[in-house]
């Protein structure tokens, strides 16, 4: 069964400045014995005591200001960061979509990029080969797929990336915003595919600043502030307390 259980998880980032990242300080620290001041690496507490239980079917939006810990939480859920304290147990095949461009190689063809990105997202080569036609259809890139990616415009790259990402079958889908730079007509199409993808996946966690997208994809939300979960509940209610107003009420349209 697909599920996410996070239990009192905290994430602390060690911040190594140029000096403490080098051997010098460690070596000198040992020699001098001045451990209390010299050896301690300053840390940033990115997440504090997060407890979260999400089951199959959950459609959760993550809201909060920049630096509130949304992306870090997504990275914990994907397994990139293991909590420094507490624990996170994730059951299911996770597909993290944080940056549409990562894992894309400008020097190889669009087709090869589809395969590689797919492999990174946990698909097999055969599975991806079956989907190439579908992706070609959706992206409308046609013969460009055999051209190296560097010849693509920004918009074309986003199309390709979206095409690949929306073609997979994840059990747990982790989406970070960054879906933009596409023309309006294409966005409409992408939204449909995105909706389908979300419908296919067992569990969605989606970090976004866009009320519209959140309303499209999520039914509950988590409001993060300073690395903590400030509120977790129905989407509309959380957004209302986060923004101080209801973006979907009639009154909000006038203001």
């Amino acid at each position: 069964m697909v599920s996410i259980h996070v239990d009192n998880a905290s994430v602390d980032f060690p911040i190594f400045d140029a000096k403490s990242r080098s051997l010098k300080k460690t070596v000198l620290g040992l020699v001098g014995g001045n451990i209390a001041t010299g050896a301690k690496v300053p840390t940033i507490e990115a997440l504090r005591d997060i407890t979260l239980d999400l089951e199959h079917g959950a459609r959760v939006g993550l809201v909060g200001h920049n630096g509130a810990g949304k992306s870090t939480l997504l990275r914990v859920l994907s397994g990139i960061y293991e909590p420094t304290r507490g624990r996170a147990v994730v059951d299911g095949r996770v597909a993290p979509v944080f940056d549409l461009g990562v894992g894309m190689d400008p020097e190889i063809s669009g087709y090869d990029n589809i395969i590689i990105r797919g492999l990174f997202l946990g698909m097999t080569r055969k599975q991806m080969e079956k989907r190439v036609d579908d992706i070609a259809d959706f992206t409308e890139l046609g013969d460009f797929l055999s051209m190296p990616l560097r010849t693509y415009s920004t918009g074309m790259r986003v199309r390709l990336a979206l095409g690949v990402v929306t073609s997979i079958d994840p059990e747990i889908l982790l989406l970070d915003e960054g879906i933009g730079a596409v023309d309006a007509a294409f966005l409409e199409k992408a939204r449909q595919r995105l909706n389908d993808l979300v419908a296919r996946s067992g569990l969605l966690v989606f970090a976004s600043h866009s009320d519209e997208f959140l309303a499209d994809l999520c039914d509950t939300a988590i409001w993060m502030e300073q690395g903590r979960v400030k509120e977790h509940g129905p989407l509309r209610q959380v957004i209302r307390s986060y923004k101080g107003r209801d973006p979907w009420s009639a009154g909000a349209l006038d203001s």
Partner: protein
Amino acid sequence: MSQPYRWEMGARPPRGRSCAGTSRCAGSVGAVSTVSTAERSPLSRAFGDLAEGWRQRELWGHLGWQDIRQRYRRSLLGPLWITISMAVTAVALGILYAGLFGNPLETQLPYILVGFIVWGFISGCINEGSEVFVANEGLMKHLPSALSLHVYRLVWRQVLFFAHNLVVYAVMIVIFPQPLKWTDLAAIPAFGLLIVNGVWVALLAGILSTRFRDLVPISQSIVQLMFFLTPIVWIYSDLLNNPNPAVAERARIAEFNPFLHFIEIIRAPMLGQDQLLHHWLVVLGITVGGWVLTLLLLRRYRSRVAYWI
């Protein structure tokens, strides 16, 4: 680093024991799949990392090839340049040192060539290993994957380089036939051992130098120095049998150089020379010792690497 981290609490018990070996899990390849179940010990997670990376061989196999093709993209001869530049280096240095040392070319050239091919693999694993995680920062921060994935990709790339260079060896064997025997097939398990060692070396160098960035230039300088200290251009047995006892005595110090033994177990069979058991024993010892050390490090710091990059 003073804080004791509780490992069992981490987020990525890589698809627990419950699914190891079942077809479903084997099929659903991917660093991205995480099916965690029971609590796992840090050591079994270290092994899990190695196994998880191995399951993704389709990915790193592809990426390793890609790296090679990438390097020679749009060049007419492509990866054949690896072969050509090795041939040019070996021939030029073979002639040079044959002259300098007064050795016959048919001895000096094959010796330098095989030494260079093996050394290329060793230095590649160490030098690129020390940068393996830093170089893959983008991937590691956006797509979860086993640490070993990046290491396997690197070592696989070195294997491909090695294979390209073997073409030069094949040509050389035709021009300067060596007294090869059936027992010289020992070169194959010897290279296997070299690969197994390449993995731990790259993993160890990668973890350490991600934390301590100074180790990158340090290890690169050491590797460069070791090239001269290792019998690659100078012929070890000649110095050992030097009539001047002082020189012979000094040559014996080379036995303390671990690289010597790795080179010897491959070079001796490839050139049809006598194989000495003690080189094998030293290499086996290093293999076990190196893996134990690397597993201990992986157990302790596997999940910290993402925080360090």
